[in-house]
């Protein structure tokens, strides 16, 4: 490793613009003549639209146009799609209800857009939007998944009887049932995974500019995947063909999954910029973000884990209901199926697994992938079960896990995934050492003397990243391939531009990707520029989510570098009259091994472009591209240990220690990886203690639609973290990378809840474990009764 290469803890190249206020986010963009959009949104969770009167709004100051769903439909703009086909266990395709960008006859959740006003200023647009008169005829609404399945529930889409989208299964039901029937011990839990609102700090925004002379559109948008946005906007929504649409995702202020999807507002801004003849900008306010950004999680699960007399896991049976909200968002169908149920083997050898998933419509905001996407839900089920089983069996939670760990790789689980590498003992040992697990009893006694209840909990997670092998996901219903592309352009002076289909919205690609180039081509980080986020510059790309940019995006760059390196070596060998195999590239030089013959890197690059003296038949230039399609998912895994102190008087939980030991495979920049773990863990702690999206069950109103009502973790809610890594390399990509972006959010919620339930002696606790809930659970628990 060089000082700037792979493994180096270098500060980020992109920071300078962010710390000086020079970042360029979508809302910072403006073009001449730009107008603002304001959306008219449904105030009801479920209502018929009997008519829309726009006359008053049209006459208001500054108003350019008032447009409705009917006009959008007339203009042939297609409905929003779900890009992953899931079939129910009876073979029938999922029941997808029509999802127009502007509702035409029915609104199905609070906040659904029904019309848009384009005006000269934001204030004028909003005032006119308030003046649009929609004749609403309210319908009964349903907000929770179990209520939506109940007999007599309001029906949300005609083609989805009983609000059921699909009834899907994986694994062997008979084998799992038999294991449970013959078990020495069965642990059974009812588990809910609370709905979360992503809350990227930068609200979504779009600026659409239609150029009539060129019949060409430009869209600046807050996207994690601008090429996917362009593809979907072109192929499915018929906004414009791809060569007539440029999508730019400039600096983006966080995504967490919520900026993967192509939302109504982007579609409408593009369409309206042509229709109204002006560039149109829309920026969500925070309440719009709460109402319209795709939410996360929201599962209700019953799970049983069976053990034999030697405490070996012999079977697992899981039944889950997933709340999809009012419409199927882009990747929604994949989340509780192939991103969830396929991880239900955890880190363990479990011979028989079965999982059934019912996806249902409700009158709530659509739900889709959110940091971890399915894997946090799987990990929460598994790790609550194992910890509970250890308590029931009277054995150490660490040793029960260890006794059931997968120890040999590759390991084929009964639920599709084939784990390629790992060392679960290593991360468990590292976390236990970091947490001084053995010393817990002493700390508990000391806390008790101070009147505090101390508890410890762990979670051993595994997840699947590096999304994804195209052929495999295609066979499972994905509408796209999930490879990545890259282009490495070496300039005549030897500086390098890397064009990547990955998109950075906080991950630090401008630094880590440059570190890879520095490592391989021996140039300084300052000589490398990473270009991303613009469909006019980068040919194609699938974007950033599912911790794929290292494992998949960098692998594509690595492949392109291979080609650049090979050509540069050929040129150098020709120039220095040496054998190609003897050429080495390092430290800005191209040398002939074992001799003092050398050229500067820039001299070889210049030679490629002057083309005065190239090997016979070689094309000039030094620029190569590559597509990389992964051979398998990658499997980051690790162990998190959380220690809490609960105040028995108030139920308030303090996280007093949090230790993370992760195996992410090869690490490019440890500083950035630690930042990703910190962020993920804070989000997981947020889910465990604070964040709970609440709908009124009768009216379907989102009760928690501002930061007043939806608590986000803040600096004083979390301790300093003890973060370390162990390493087994991923054998399936050239760099050995597994991915680190989601682990923290996956492993931490069960660790926190296991710690609290340990402290209070009551396992009956749901997330978010607010002080009130903890206090109530404590009052009902043996700890409290013993104290009386």
């Amino acid at each position, binding site marked *: 490793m060089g000082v700037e290469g792979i493994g180096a803890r270098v500060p980020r190249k992109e920071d300078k613009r962010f*710390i000086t206020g020079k970042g360029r986010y979508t809302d910072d963009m403006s073009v001449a003549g730009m107008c603002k959009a304001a959306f008219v949104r449904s105030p009801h969770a479920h209502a018929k639209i009997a008519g829309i009167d726009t006359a008053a709004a049209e006459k208001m100051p500054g108003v350019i146009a008032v447009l409705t769903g009917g006009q959008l439909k007339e203009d042939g703009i297609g409905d929003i799609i779900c890009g992953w086909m899931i079939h129910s266990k009876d073979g029938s395709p999922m029941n997808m209800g029509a999802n127009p960008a502007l509702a035409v006859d029915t609104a199905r959740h609070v906040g659904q857009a029904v019309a848009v006003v384009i005006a000269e200023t934001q204030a004028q647009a909003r005032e006119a939007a308030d003046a649009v008169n929609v004749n609403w005829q309210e319908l009964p609404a349903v907000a929770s998944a179990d209520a939506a399945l109940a007999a007599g529930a309001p029906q949300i889409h005609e083609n989805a009887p009983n609000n059921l989208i699909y009834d899907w299964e994986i694994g062997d039901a008979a084998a799992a049932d038999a294991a449970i029937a013959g078990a020495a011990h069965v642990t059974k839990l009812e588990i809910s995974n609370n709905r979360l609102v992503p809350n990227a700090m930068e609200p979504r925004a779009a600026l659409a500019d239609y150029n009539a002379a060129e019949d060409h559109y430009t869209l600046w948008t807050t996207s994690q995947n601008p090429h996917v946005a362009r593809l979907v906007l072109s192929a499915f929504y018929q906004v414009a063909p791809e060569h007539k649409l440029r999508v730019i995702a400039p600096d983006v202020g966080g995504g967490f999954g919520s900026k993967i999807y192509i939302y109504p507002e982007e579609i409408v801004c593009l369409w309206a910029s042509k229709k109204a003849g002006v560039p149109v900008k829309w920026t969500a*306010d925070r309440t719009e973000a709460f109402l319209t950004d795709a939410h996360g999680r929201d599962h209700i699960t019953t799970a049983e884990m069976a053990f034999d007399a030697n405490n070996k896991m012999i079977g697992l049976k899981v039944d889950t209901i997933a709340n999809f909200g009012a419409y199927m968002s882009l990747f929604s169908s994949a989340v509780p199926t192939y991103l969830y149920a396929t991880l239900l083997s955890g880190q363990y050898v479990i011979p028989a697994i079965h999982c059934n998933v019912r996806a249902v419509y409700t009158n709530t905001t659509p739900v889709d992938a959110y940091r971890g996407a399915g894997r946090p839900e799987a990990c929460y089920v598994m790790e609550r079960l194992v910890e509970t089983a250890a308590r029931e069996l009277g054995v150490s939670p660490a040793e029960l896990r260890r006794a059931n760990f997968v120890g040999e790789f590759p390991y084929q689980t009964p639920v599709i995934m084939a784990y390629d590498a790992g060392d679960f003992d290593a991360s468990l040992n590292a976390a236990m050492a970091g947490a001084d697990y053995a010393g817990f009893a002493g700390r508990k006694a000391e806390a008790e003397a101070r009147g505090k209840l101390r508890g410890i909990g762990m979670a051993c997670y595994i997840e699947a990243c590096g999304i994804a092998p195209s052929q495999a996901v295609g066979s499972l219903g994905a509408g796209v391939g999930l490879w990545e592309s890259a282009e490495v352009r070496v300039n005549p002076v030897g500086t390098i531009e890397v064009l990547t289909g990955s998109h950075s919205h906080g991950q630090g690609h401008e630094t880590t990707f440059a570190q890879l180039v520095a490592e391989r081509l021996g140039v300084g980080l300052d000589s490398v520029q990473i270009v991303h986020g613009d469909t006019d510059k980068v040919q194609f790309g699938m974007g950033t989510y599912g911790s794929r940019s290292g494992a998949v995006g960098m692998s594509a760059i690595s492949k392109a570098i291979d080609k650049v390196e090979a050509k540069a070596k050929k040129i150098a060998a020709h120039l220095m009259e040496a054998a190609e195999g003897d050429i080495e590239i390092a430290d800005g030089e191209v040398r002939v091994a074992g001799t003092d013959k050398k050229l500067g890197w820039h001299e070889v690059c210049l030679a490629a472009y002057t083309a005065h003296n190239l090997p016979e038949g070689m094309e000039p230039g030094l620029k190569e591209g590559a597509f990389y399609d992964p051979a398998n998912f990658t499997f980051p895994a690790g162990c998190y240990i959380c220690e809490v102190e609960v105040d028995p008087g108030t139920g308030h939980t303090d996280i007093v220690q949090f230790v993370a030991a992760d195996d992410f495979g090869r690490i490019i920049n440890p500083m950035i990886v630690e930042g990703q773990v910190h962020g993920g863990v*804070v989000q997981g702690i947020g889910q465990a203690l604070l964040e709970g999206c609440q709908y009124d069950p009768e009216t379907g109103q989102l009760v928690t639609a501002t930061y007043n009502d939806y608590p986000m973790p803040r600096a004083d809610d979390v301790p300093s973290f003890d973060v370390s890594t162990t390493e087994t390399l991923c054998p399936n990509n050239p760099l050995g990378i597994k991915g680190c972006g989601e682990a923290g959010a996956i492993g931490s919620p069960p660790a926190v809840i296991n710690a609290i339930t340990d402290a209070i002696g009551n396992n009956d606790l749901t997330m978010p474990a607010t002080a009130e809930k903890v206090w109530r659970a404590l009052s009902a628990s043996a700890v409290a009764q013993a104290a009386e």
Partner: protein
Amino acid sequence: MANVSMTVNGRAVERTVEDRTLLVQFLREDLGLTGTHVGCDTSQCGACVVHIDGKAVKSCTTLAAQVDGASITTIEGLANGVDLHPVQAAFKEHHGLQCGFCTPGMIMAAVDMIERHGGKLDEKTVREELEGNRERHHGC
């Protein structure tokens, strides 16, 4: 309409704005200083913090007309030419940012905090004082 004049990052500016113009809108839209961000509607996220006469204030909850005659410093005016302010340098050095969206507000709040506590800051105080700033804490 209101006529407002103030000093922003050392430069005198004067504009006629709608009475309801917020300081953050004035900075972003009238002056093109887009480093100050808006992250919420309820004055809770702190992405919009600027200094008004040396004190950290949320510019989303301040009318431009209210600060007529004041001296404003935004993130763009914090560095001394090419030399970063020590707090800016520390955010970079210690990986205190990821997507960068909340960062300007965090830095402006931190500078104010350090000035108020005169070098007697401890971790607990910093965590408590950041109560008014939200971020998705690393991992955008």
